[in-house]
């Protein structure tokens, strides 16, 4: 996560140097998105269609993006933070309101998703959805079968029950290094409100996580894709699309590794990555054109087919690969959707408790 960020910040520093010197008549849009999160032909198509050059740069943690945005003068025109981060960034005055008159394709958006993102961005004034997904359990079917006697996981119990996780210790367990994803899951498993900010509840979540801590090999937010695909680990608490990418890489490698993904029956967190335009974006007009292009049904479907995440565009669903659209782990059915919950951003005081708790869990002290 971090070394990649170091590389990224170095490249983006260079990037700002070069783009600053561009000619006024060259139309440019500087896009900052998650790594491995787009079919690159989409960018070429956009340039061909509009003549706008895309300077595409990537990050792999919300924290890095947020720090750049809060420092100001990032030079980016389109950024893609997750909704709970976006909510706080809106409060800090990071973004400009979208000019909906420049976004005719907004009519393609899916109300099921827009209603939920409106909790973070009231009336969706500042952002439109790019992709969304869940936080669940990715696992190596054969290794889990060998350790637990079943290759079907459907509950958080596999992870939060120390007896069961102990059996998976030797084949390897990775967990997202992201308290905002894991602590709500612990609260949900304990039957508490995943959005609880009560220190008592957070302490209970901490206790539950400390019980399974001895069986966790590593907390990391991107290494688990390769680790799962290579068969180095047998269980990962991770983001849906990442697990699917691991599954595809494993299939390509033909080493006999089969990866499964489960949305636990107790409920799982639903997250949203939102496209937004910074208030100080140097090319706001081009940014609107880019976002509008990304809401074209064929385009966003192409992206979903590539990154294996569901998008928030209803009209695109006819162009999404059938296998992906029918996969209830990607596009959950109505019953599963009911069990999905969203997480609100923490206030600074709770954030401090959460981070402190997380340090205790991760370091075991």
């Amino acid at each position, binding site marked *: 996560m971090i070394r990649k960020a170091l590389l990224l910040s170095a490249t983006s520093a260079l990037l700002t140097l070069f783009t600053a010197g561009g000619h006024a008549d060259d139309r440019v849009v500087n896009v900052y998105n998650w790594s491995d999160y787009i079919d690159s032909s989409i960018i070429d198509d956009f340039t061909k269609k509009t003549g706008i050059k895309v300077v595409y740069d990537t990050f792999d943690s919300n924290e890095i993006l947020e720090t750049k945005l809060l420092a100001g003068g990032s030079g980016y025109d389109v950024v893609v933070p997750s909704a709970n981060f976006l909510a706080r960034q809106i409060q800090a005055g*990071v973004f400009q309101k979208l000019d909906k008159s420049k976004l005719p394709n907004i009519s393609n958006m899916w109300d099921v998703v827009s209603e939920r993102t409106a909790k973070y961005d009231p009336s969706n004034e500042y952002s439109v959805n790019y992709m969304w997904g869940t936080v669940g359990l990715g696992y190596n079917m054969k290794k889990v079968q060998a350790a637990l006697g079943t290759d079907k996981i459907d509950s958080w119990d596999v992870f939060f029950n120390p007896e069961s996780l102990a059996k998976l210790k030797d084949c390897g367990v990775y967990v997202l290094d992201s308290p905002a994803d894991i602590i709500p899951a612990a609260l949900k498993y304990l039957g508490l409100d995943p959005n609880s900010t009560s220190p008592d509840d957070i302490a209970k979540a901490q206790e539950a996580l400390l019980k399974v801590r001895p069986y966790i*090999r590593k907390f990391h937010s991107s290494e688990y894709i390769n680790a799962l695909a290579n068969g*180095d680990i047998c269980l990962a608490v991770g983001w849906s699309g990442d697990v699917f990418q691991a599954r595809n890489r494993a299939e390509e490698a033909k080493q006999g590794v089969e990866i499964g993904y489960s949305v636990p029956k107790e409920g799982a967190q639903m997250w949203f990555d939102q496209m937004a335009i910074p208030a100080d974006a140097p090319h706001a007009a081009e940014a609107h054109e880019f976002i509008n292009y990304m809401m074209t049904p064929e385009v966003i479907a192409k992206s979903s087919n590539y990154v294996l995440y569901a998008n928030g565009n209803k009209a695109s669903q006819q162009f999404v690969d059938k296998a992906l659209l029918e996969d209830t782990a990607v596009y959950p059915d109505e019953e599963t959707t009911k069990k999905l919950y969203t997480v609100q951003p923490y206030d*600074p005081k709770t954030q*401090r408790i959460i981070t402190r708790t997380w*340090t205790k869990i991760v370091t075991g002290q």
Partner: protein
Amino acid sequence: MTDIAAAVSPSAETTALPSRLAQGFISRLVIIIPYLWLLFFFLVPFIIVFKISLSQTAISMPPYTPVLDFADGISGFLAGFRELNFDNYTWLTQDALYFNAYVTSVIIAGISTVLTLIVGYPIAYGMARAPASVRPTLLMLVILPFWTSFLIRVYAWIGILKPEGLLNQVLLATGIISQPLIILNTYTAIFIGIVYSYLPFMVLPLYSSLEKMDYSLIEAAKDLGCPPTSAFWKITFPLSLPGVIAGCLLVFIPAVGEFVIPDLLGGSQTLMIGKTLWNEFFANRDWPVSSAVAVILLLLLIVPIMFFQRAQARAQEQDK
């Protein structure tokens, strides 16, 4: 550095007066540049960091309240002095986390430094004793790794140390072990990473002090019946002491604040100050507290840095 000075000064004395004046100007300019460098790239950033460490977090851009702002003119600036508070520093003392992180960092850096010395000394010694014709090549070999990105070299160690990695495969194939060694994500891996990465910083100063040593001293010791081991401890090692001190500090100081190696090679349980600072800055968005952590880290390092400078000054006097 002293070699260069020695090489330049005689020629300066033989040149004519006007060019000597010009040289005086140039040498003053040469001195000014490092000071300007320190001013702009050390002192100014430090003052900015220190200023942020006295502010409070806020949901805004940038995410902290302004402190000692000139926006209200000089009087506002002076009024700001009365409102200064050191809450962020008090906060650091209230949670054992920070203290533990500082202590762990110093211990890890200390152990790594000793290990680097143990590995680096024989290398430097071998280089210094090698025939003069091979020495430039050996020196080149020590510097060569710098041509590859530091990140990539640390990443390569993941491939070597992981359970299915190169090291385990070799050891398993040769039958030395029957179970793969778990090295990656442990403290051992951090030590390996730091020793590997900082080895040149240890070897180069050691080499330069060992190379200068007069070997006839050892011959004299031998003639007088001194066994090689005690000749080493009585002559070679004391004479190389400036190199030892320089090397140790060059390894210790950056290792205390090391962030990349523990993050990549260490396990999640590793609590070092670099990671703590990262957490405060990125996860908590608490720029003021992370600035306070950085200021304390700097103060913690100033003691060895000053020690280093005094040792260097002493070594230079000895040379004269």
